[in-house]
């Protein structure tokens, strides 16, 4: 059996099981079994991208590995992707290769951070991506495989391996995979990619390095005129507590996944998404005195108790709708470091590159 590894070195094994063991031994996996990227499987995945195998998308750090379509296709095969998923994987890779994403620094940091992939547009449907109950949990192939493909590319092309180049002190489970669809069908708001300048009919991925999600309990009370304001304070506190880098380092982007019930409630109360962002940004402040009283603070205790904003501008909070309806929405605090201070990048999912082949996606 011939294996086209993501380092472009052809490997050989006697059978499928031996090939998987070989990939484990070489540190090419995320610790879980992978689909063996045989030359034939990789070639099929390359075809599904619509690009030439040797097209180079960029250098992926910290290894500065040459990120070719073929290597990304190998990662997608290993992750268990279907060919239909390939354009989304390519878009996610292009997003993290954007210099604004600071992938090299993100891979190397000691902080626990991983790329969150939010998919918008028709790609959600053709890939079978899920944005409802448990969208970030186990059980959905597209969500799991696409996020995992990006991680395997970051390991095998970018060289991010724990303790030598991925220096996250503990890491978090989202480093295996963290991909979901925005639940556009249950959202009263403009979809995330449309806010980034894309037409709603286009498909796009938005990738942001984030901490693990924090469930935020919200008890809706339609009879209480202060309820929406109180919701904003609850969300803001997820970013402004001194344990979050958004409070100690400040100035990066972060994300909030509103569940459909919470989104509908806010919309019904007359709130726009822009107003949600603005209010949370206004509320997400930490006092210098409180910060200085914690061990998260670098520097001397300030003489004046400044109120320090967690967000430089309201647009730095990405808001989208996902998850099941109920008590909890989810906040994603972030790293707030690197040359670009933890920026999100949105990339179009390019679908005009390939022709349809009957039975190809099965």
């Amino acid at each position, binding site marked *: 059996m011939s294996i086209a590894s993501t380092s472009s070195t052809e490997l050989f094994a006697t059978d499928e099981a031996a090939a998987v063991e070989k990939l484990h031994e070489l540190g090419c996996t995320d610790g879980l079994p992978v689909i063996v990227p045989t030359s034939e499987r990789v070639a099929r995945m390359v075809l599904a991208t619509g690009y030439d195998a040797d097209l180079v998308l960029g250098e992926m*750090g*910290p*290894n*500065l590995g040459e990120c070719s379509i073929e290597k990304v296709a190998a990662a997608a095969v290993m992750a268990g992707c279907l060919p239909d998923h390939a354009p989304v994987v390519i878009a996610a890779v292009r997003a993290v290769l954007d210099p604004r994403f600071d992938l090299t620094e993100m891979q*190397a940091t000691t902080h626990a951070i991983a790329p969150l992939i939010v998919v918008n547009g028709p790609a959600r449907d053709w890939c079978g991506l899920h944005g409802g109950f448990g969208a970030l949990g186990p059980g959905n192939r597209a969500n799991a495989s696409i996020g995992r493909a990006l991680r395997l590319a970051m390991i095998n092309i970018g*060289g991010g391996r724990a303790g*030598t*180049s991925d*220096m996250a002190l503990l890491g978090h489970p989202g480093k295996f995979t963290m991909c979901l669809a925005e639940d556009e069908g249950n959202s009263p708001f403009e979809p995330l990619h449309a806010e980034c300048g894309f037409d709603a009919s286009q498909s796009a991925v938005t990738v942001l390095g984030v901490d693990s999600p924090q469930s935020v309990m919200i008890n809706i009370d339609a009879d209480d005129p202060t309820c929406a304001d109180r919701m904003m304070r609850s969300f803001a506190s997820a970013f402004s507590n001194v344990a979050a880098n958004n409070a100690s380092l400040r100035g990066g982007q972060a994300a909030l996944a509103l569940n459909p019930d919470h989104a509908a409630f806010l919309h019904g109360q007359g709130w726009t998404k822009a107003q949600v962002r603005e209010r949370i940004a206004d509320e997400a402040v930490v006092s210098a005195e409180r910060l200085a009283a914690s061990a998260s603070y670098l520097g001397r205790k300030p003489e004046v108790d400044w109120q320090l904003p967690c967000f430089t501008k309201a647009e730095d909070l990405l808001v989208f709708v996902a998850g099941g309806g109920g008590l909890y929405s989810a906040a994603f605090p972030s790293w707030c470091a690197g040359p670009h201070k933890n920026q999100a990048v949105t990339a179009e999912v390019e679908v005009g590159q390939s022709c349809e082949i009957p039975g190809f996606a099965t």
Partner: protein
Amino acid sequence: MALVTTEFWAQGDFIARSVGLPDVPRVELPHPVAGSGAANLAAVAKQTVPLIVAALRGDA
């Protein structure tokens, strides 16, 4: 000249190779250094300065 603590030495090697500077001068510091107190920092500095000079001279 890069000063790298023991815990991050392997990462230093990796990055040096990645950026095409495998022989960039580096000096190893004990880990942790950050927050270890002024007395310890002074002791580490005293111990390290000769190593830095030697590395810059190419003697290390």
